[in-house]
Structure formats: structure tokens, C-alpha cells
């Protein structure tokens, strides 16, 4: 039974916790492109005072799960919005690193660099695109509700193969119960396991999910991150500053199969 196991996972706080936002410190120094997430990027102070409105300072970065180190290191990426144009490579995005071999880390640094140059090439088109799709226009403002961003992120994360379910133990348990209640049958709640902070131009997203057994968790996390960023940036015009993926459980299969009929009637 799914609900039973979810509940058990919740109450005992076990749930095979594999938090991808955690990694050994050595990989952090491996790349000049990465910074500690607890440090606000230097350009952000200018941005906060800008009249165009930015996300509030990120106090959210400081929640470090017990005894382990927060990774979600940042890699530089392209800029959107003309007010960033004077900043070299403005945006930030969460980056996952496998805690594994150094060779793998190096590979990732190379990828990150390739990504930066790719993003730099895209910058011009981004700025051009921003003129047509700006949220703050001379004729009036466009606001996008948090729940819209949550829904899009939820759908985008679920689209990635290897993602079994969304949400932490408690939410999953309640979600299972809610789905069984016929009144106003809402189906799966697309915002479960997604938390967002939305500013006027930027959004930051936290995702909790359960992966299927046998997948590469860093790869799935990165795929989720890429898909969420792409979807949100395309659909809302918001710049995604970071996507923190936390994997709360591994789905071993067979959990949701119907219980065996009782031997005694």
C-alpha cells in the first residue's frame, strides 16, 4: 500500500533519503564557476535597488539539512532583461554534482563552461525576446500567480522519466488520501512537492520528488532542472534563478500493487 509506506517513511523520517543537493566540499572548489549558495551574488545588491523590482534577498539559501553540506552550487548562465545587459553573465542556476569520482566532476565543469558560452550566445536573442514578452510594459503590468508557476514546475518535473512521484512523505501520504476521497475529485495535485518564490521578473523553485529505483539520480535531477527551467522561462517569461531538487525517496516498485486477498474470509 502506497499510503502505508509513505506514512511509515514520514513518521520514521527514513524514506531512503538521498538528497541531491548535498555533496562533498571538494567538488565545490573544482570549478571557478561555482559559488557557495549562501553568498549572494555581487550584482544582486545593485539589482535590488533597481526600480524594476527583484526578488528579495535569498534568506532561503541558508536552510541546510542536518549535518550535511548544501551544495546546490551555482553555475553562471545567460541573462535576460535589458537591465542586466551590463552584467557579465547574470543569471544563476542550481547545479548538481555527483558526489562521485573527480573525473566526473571535471566532466561536469567542462559541461558547465560549454553551457556558459552557449548561454552567452543566446543572450542577444533573449534580450530581443524580452522586448516582446516583457511582464512589465508601458501599458500595464502582468502578474503571474505563484500557483501558476508551481503548476508548470510540477507538470514539467513529472514529464521527466525516472520521476515516480512528487512531494515529501507527509504531502504524499495526505495526497494519497485526498485522491481517494470522491468529493470534488481533484485527481493528482500538480503543485504537490513544488515550492516557488516568484518576484516580478525572477522565480526560484524547490522540488521534492521520489525517483524510480535504478535511475541515475544526478542525471534525473539535472533533467528535471533543465525541463523545469525551460518550461517556466518559455511559458512565464520569468527568469529562473535556481531549481533545488531534493530526492526524498526511491520507489522500489510493487509498492502500489493491490494487497493480497486475505487468506481467511
Amino acid at each position, binding site marked *: 500500500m502506497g499510503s502505508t509506506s509513505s506514512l511509515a517513511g514520514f513518521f520514521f523520517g527514513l524514506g531512503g533519503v538521498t538528497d541531491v543537493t548535498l555533496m562533498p566540499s571538494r567538488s565545490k572548489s573544482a570549478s571557478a564557476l561555482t559559488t557557495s549558495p549562501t553568498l549572494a551574488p555581487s550584482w544582486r545588491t545593485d539589482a535590488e535597488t533597481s526600480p524594476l523590482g527583484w526578488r528579495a534577498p535569498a534568506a532561503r539559501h541558508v536552510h541546510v539539512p542536518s549535518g550535511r553540506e548544501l551544495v546546490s552550487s551555482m553555475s553562471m548562465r545567460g541573462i535576460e532583461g535589458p537591465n542586466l545587459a551590463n552584467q557579465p553573465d547574470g543569471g544563476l542556476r542550481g547545479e548538481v554534482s555527483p558526489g562521485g569520482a573527480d573525473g566526473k566532476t571535471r566532466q561536469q565543469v567542462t559541461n558547465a563552461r560549454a553551457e556558459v558560452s552557449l548561454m552567452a550566445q543566446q543572450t542577444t536573442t533573449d534580450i530581443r525576446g524580452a522586448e516582446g514578452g516583457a511582464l512589465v510594459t508601458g501599458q500595464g503590468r*502582468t502578474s503571474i500567480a505563484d500557483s*501558476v508557476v508551481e503548476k508548470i514546475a510540477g507538470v514539467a518535473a513529472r514529464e521527466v522519466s525516472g520521476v515516480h512521484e512528487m512531494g515529501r512523505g507527509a504531502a504524499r501520504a495526505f495526497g494519497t488520501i485526498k485522491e481517494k476521497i470522491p468529493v470534488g475529485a481533484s485527481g493528482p495535485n500538480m503543485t504537490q512537492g513544488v515550492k516557488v518564490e516568484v518576484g516580478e521578473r525572477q522565480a526560484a523553485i524547490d522540488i521534492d520528488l521520489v525517483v524510480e529505483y535504478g535511475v541515475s539520480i544526478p542525471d534525473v535531477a539535472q533533467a528535471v532542472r533543465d525541463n523545469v527551467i525551460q518550461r517556466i522561462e518559455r511559458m*512565464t517569461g520569468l527568469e529562473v534563478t535556481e531549481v533545488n531538487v531534493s530526492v526524498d525517496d526511491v520507489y522500489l516498485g510493487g509498492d502500489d500493487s493491490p494487497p493480497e486477498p486475505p487468506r481467511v474470509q
Partner: protein
Amino acid sequence: MTPNLEAVAAAALGCPLIADLTGGRFGEVATYLPGRRITGVREVDGTVEVHVVARWGTPLPEVADVLRAAVEPHAGGVPVAVFVEDIELPADRIRAAIPEATVATP
């Protein structure tokens, strides 16, 4: 020239990228008239607010641009603020099409 909010609502609903007008999370966004209300449209501080549920698939800034263009002729020169309050997923549409009673229980 004052905005014609009724025409604004009609123009918004006529926009194919918009699923519906919405009263916001608490349903209070509306213009209150004697005997009825116009849900999702109001004038606040010299701005016409239009609160909508968008359809899935089109970038929201584009939705807002199209909506604003559709609504502006009726806004009487007042700036139009678009609030995307929710997004209608394809599954929502399917569910809405099924009568409530048949949705029940797995």
C-alpha cells in the same frame, strides 16, 4: 473616458488564449454592480485589473499581450494590468467536461 468593464470582461472571455475570468484565490476580485457582479475585472487606482485563468501551451507574456490588445479598446485609455491567477491544464479541461457524478472514486 471611463473604462467599460463589462465590455472588458466580454473581450477577455472572447480571447481564445483565456480559459476563464477568475475572482482570485478568495473570489473577491469583481466589479460589484446592483444585482450582479462582473467576476475577475475591476478598476483600482486608475488601473483596470483583469484576473484570468490561462490555457496551457502559450507563453504567458504572449497571452497577456494578446489579452491586453483585446481589452484595451474598452479600457478608455486606462492602463490594463493582467493577473494570471491560474493555468488550465489539459487534464483540467477533460475533468471539467465530465459530469461531476462520474468522476468519483477509483
